[in-house]
C-alpha cells in the first residue's frame, strides 16, 4: 500500500481502555475471526477486527465516531472464538463506556460517572438533596402514625399543605425530578447530536441533501426503535443468547412503569382537581390493589427485578466462565436498576404491612435510586438507550440515499 499514515497513539485512551475492561486489547493479532463469527457484523467493513486495531493504536477519534462500536450488542461470540483471549466484546464495551464519557455534557459530571471513584459522590448528591428537602419540607423528619400512613401512604412524604391546586408532596417530587429529567434529556440530546455530527463527519464528502426532522424520525429513528423493542439483533446472538431473557422483561417493565407513572401523574395531579371530594380522596391515596394499573405496576416491578436478576446472573456467569472483566460501567447499571426495583417493591410491601418508619426509609432510598437513574442516564451504561438507538438510526442513514445515492454514487 502506498498510502502512509502517521499513527499517533493516545496513551491515555489505551490506559483508560485497560482500566475499563479492555485490558485484553493488546493480545489481538488481527486474525479477523471475530468479524466472521459476529452475527451482527455486515459484509462490508465488518467489526470488531478494525476496532481492535484502532484501539491498539489509540485512535480514539475514529472509535467514538464509529457506529459499529454501538451496533455491537456484546453477544460474546467473538470473545468465545477469539484464539488469543483478546475479548473483542469486552473491548468494544469499554470503548462504548469511553464514548459516553466523551460525549457527556457537562464533562465534569460525565467524568464523575465514569469510574467507581465517583460512586460515593454519585450517591451523596441525591442523598443530600432529597434528605435536606425531606427534613425541611416535612418539618423535622415527621413520621406519620400508622393510621395516617394507611390512609395517605407516601402522599405526605414531603409534608402537607392546604393549597388546593398543588399538593406539597407533588410540588417537591416535581421540584426534584422534573429538573433532573429535563437536564438528563437535554444532556442526552446534546451528546447524541455531538455523536451524530462526528459520525457524519467521519463519512467524509459533501452531502447536498439532509433529511428533515420528519424524514429523520420516520425513516431512521422509528425503525431503529421498533427493531430495538423487538430485540431482533439480540436474538441473533449466540454465546450470550440468555441475555434476551433478562433484557426483554426489563425493557417491558420500564415501559409498564412509565405508563404507571404517567397514569399516576394524570389522575392525582390533574384529574383529581376537577372531581368531587370523595373521588379526590380516593385518587390521592395509594392506588388500590384491585386497580388494573396497580396490577400492571406490580407486574412491572416484579418483571424489572427478575429481568435485571437474570442479567446479573448472566454477567456473573460470563465473568466466571469466559473471563469477562468485572467493570464499574456494567455493574453500576445492574446494581442501580436492582436498587430501584427492590426499594420500590420493598417500600410498597412495608407500607402494606404498616410500618411507617421502615417504609419511609425504603421510600427515601427509592427516590434516591430513581434520581440516580435519571440524572446519570446520559453518562452511564444506561446511555446505550440513547446512543445505540441513534447509532442504529445512523446505520440506516448511512445506507440511505442521503449518503449513498443510488445514481452516480461512489
Amino acid at each position, binding site marked *: *500500500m502506498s498510502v502512509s499514515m502517521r499513527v499517533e497513539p493516545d496513551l491515555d485512551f489505551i490506559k483508560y481502555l485497560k482500566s475499563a475492561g479492555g485490558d485484553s486489547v493488546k493480545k489481538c*493479532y*488481527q*486474525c*479477523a*475471526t*471475530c*468479524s*466472521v*463469527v459476529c452475527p451482527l*457484523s*455486515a*459484509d*462490508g*467493513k*465488518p467489526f470488531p*477486527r*478494525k476496532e481492535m486495531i484502532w484501539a491498539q493504536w489509540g485512535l480514539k477519534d475514529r472509535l467514538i465516531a464509529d457506529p459499529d462500536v454501538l451496533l455491537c450488542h456484546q453477544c460474546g461470540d467473538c470473545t468465545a*472464538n477469539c*484464539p*488469543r*483471549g483478546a475479548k473483542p466484546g469486552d473491548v468494544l464495551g469499554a470503548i462504548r463506556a469511553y464514548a459516553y464519557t466523551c460525549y457527556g455534557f457537562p464533562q465534569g459530571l460525565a467524568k464523575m460517572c465514569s469510574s467507581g471513584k465517583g460512586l460515593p459522590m454519585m450517591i451523596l448528591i441525591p442523598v443530600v438533596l432529597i434528605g435536606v428537602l425531606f427534613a425541611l419540607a416535612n418539618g423535622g423528619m415527621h413520621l406519620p402514625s400508622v393510621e395516617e400512613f394507611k390512609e395517605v401512604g407516601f402522599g405526605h412524604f414531603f409534608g402537607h399543605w392546604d393549597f388546593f391546586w398543588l399538593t406539597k408532596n407533588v410540588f417537591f417530587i416535581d421540584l426534584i425530578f422534573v429538573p433532573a429529567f429535563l437536564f438528563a434529556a437535554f444532556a442526552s440530546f446534546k451528546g447524541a447530536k455531538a455523536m451524530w455530527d462526528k459520525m457524519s463527519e467521519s463519512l467524509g464528502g459533501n452531502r447536498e441533501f439532509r433529511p428533515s426532522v420528519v424524514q429523520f424520525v420516520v425513516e431512521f429513528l422509528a425503525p431503529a426503535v421498533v427493531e430495538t423493542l423487538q430485540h431482533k439483533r439480540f436474538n441473533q446472538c449466540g454465546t450470550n443468547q440468555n441475555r434476551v431473557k433478562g433484557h426483554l422483561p426489563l425493557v417491558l417493565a420500564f415501559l409498564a412503569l412509565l405508563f404507571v407513572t404517567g397514569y399516576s401523574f394524570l389522575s392525582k395531579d390533574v384529574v383529581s382537581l376537577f372531581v368531587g371530594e370523595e373521588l379526590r380522596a380516593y385518587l390521592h391515596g395509594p392506588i388500590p390493589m384491585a386497580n388494573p394499573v396497580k396490577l400492571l405496576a406490580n407486574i412491572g416491578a416484579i418483571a424489572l427485578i427478575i429481568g435485571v436478576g437474570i442479567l446479573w446472573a448472566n454477567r456473573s456467569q460470563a465473568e466466571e466462565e469466559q473471563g469477562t472483566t468485572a467493570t464499574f460501567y456494567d455493574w453500576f447499571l445492574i446494581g442501580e436498576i436492582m436498587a430501584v426495583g427492590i426499594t420500590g417493591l420493598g417500600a410498597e410491601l412495608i407500607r402494606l404491612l404498616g410500618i411507617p418508619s421502615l417504609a419511609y426509609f425504603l421510600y427515601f432510598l427509592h427516590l434516591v435510586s430513581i434520581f440516580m437513574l435519571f440524572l446519570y442516564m446520559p453518562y452511564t451504561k444506561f446511555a446505550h438507550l440513547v446512543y445505540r438507538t441513534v447509532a442504529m438510526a445512523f446505520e440506516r442513514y448511512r445506507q440511505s440515499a442521503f449518503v449513498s445515492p443510488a445514481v452516480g454514487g461512489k
Partner: protein
Amino acid sequence: MTDERSTPVAGGVLVVGGGISGLTAALEAAEVGKDVFIIEKNPYLGGRVAQLNQYFPKLCPPSCGLEINFKRLKNNRRIRMYTLTEVKSVSGSAGNYQVTLETKPRFVNSNCTACGACAEACPEERANAFNLGMDKTKAIYKSHDMAFPMRYVIDADACTKCGKCIEACAYQAIEMDMAAKTFTLDVASIVWATGWNPYDATKMTNLKYGSSNAIITNMMMERLAAPGGPTDGKILRPGDNKEPASFAFVQCAGSRDENHLEYCSFICCMATLKQITYIREQYPEAPVTVFYIDLRSPGKYEKFREKLMADPKVTFIKGKVADIIAEADGGVTLVAENAVTGDKVRVKADLAVLATGMEPTAKSLGAQFGLSMDKSGFIIADEATAMFSAGCAKKAADVVTSTQNSTAAALKAIQASR
C-alpha cells in the same frame, strides 16, 4: 550383543518411537557404541514422515532419508528393534530404569516375504489408518509399500480367524495363536521420540470438518498426492472422486489458538506451500486461495515462499477462515475477513484443506510415566532423570529441526548413560 533383557555393559538407551526422530536418536547413539532399544507402536518404522508425499523444500520423497536410516539400522548390531510395542510402565531412576513393555501380536512371523497371497485370500476389510481412513485394506495387510520391516500384519479387530490366509501362505508365516508379550528392559536413559498427531479437525466446530467431503486436512492431502495413497497419487475429492477445479487452504486450523493449540505448529505454512506444488503439477491452471494470519517460512524457506507467491493463480488473503459452508454442488464456501481491505470475503472452492497443527502424542500419556511436560504436552528434557525428548515430542518442528534435536538428545542420552 544385547540379549533379551539388558545390555552387556550397563548403560543402554531406550528410544520410544520409531519415526524420523527416534531413528535418528537411536542410530546416533548406537553408531558411537551405545546399546540401544528402539520401540514403535505401529507395525512399521518411519512414523509421520512415511506418510508424507514429499519433504519441503527440496520436494524429494520420504524414501529419501528413511531408506538410508533403515539400512543403517539393519547393519547395526547394537540396536534391537521392537514394532507394535508400547511402554506400559517405567520404574527406577536415572542410570537404572526398568521399563515394562508390551508387544502386540503381529500374527505374522519373519518367514513373510510380503508376496501378498494372504491379502488376496482374505475376505475381511478394515479402514486404512495409514491413508487416514480414505480407503480400505484387507484384515491382513502390508502397512504401506515401503514398510520396514517388510512384513504383513493382521488387524485383530477386523480378522475373523477364518484361516483362508493360512491356506494361501506358502511360507508358514501366519501364526494365529501369537499372543501379546510383556517384557522388561533395563536401561540407563530414555529418549522419548513419541512424535505428534494431527490435531482433531472436528474440534474446530466453526470449520465444520465432516460436514462436507470437500473439507480435508493437510495430512489427507499428503496421502491424496502420494503414489501409495488412496487415489494412487491423483488429487481427487474424497467421496465423489471429482477433479477439483479450485482449492483453498485454511492456515492455523487449530494452531495459535488458545481454545485449541496455543502454539504455532511451525510446519503448516510450509506444508501448504509445498502442497500447492502438488496441485500445480496436476492442475496447472486451478485457482488456489490461501487464508492466513501470518505466513511463516523461517530462514531459508523464505525462497520457497517467494517462488510460490509469484504464482499468479495463487491468492493469499490475510484473514483467518472462521466459517465454512457446505454447498449443494459438493464444494464449500469459506468465509473470512480480509484484514487488509477490511471486507468480508467468501471464496468458493471444490476442495478446502485445513492446515491442522501438531498435537504432541505425549500430551495424553506423558503424565503416567512421570515426564516433565509443558502445558501443551511437549516433553521437557531432564538431565537429572536422564529422560530426554526428541523431534516433535520436544517441540513442533520440521524434519530438519527434528533430526538436529534428535542428535542432541542422543548425545545427552550417551552422557547420561556413562
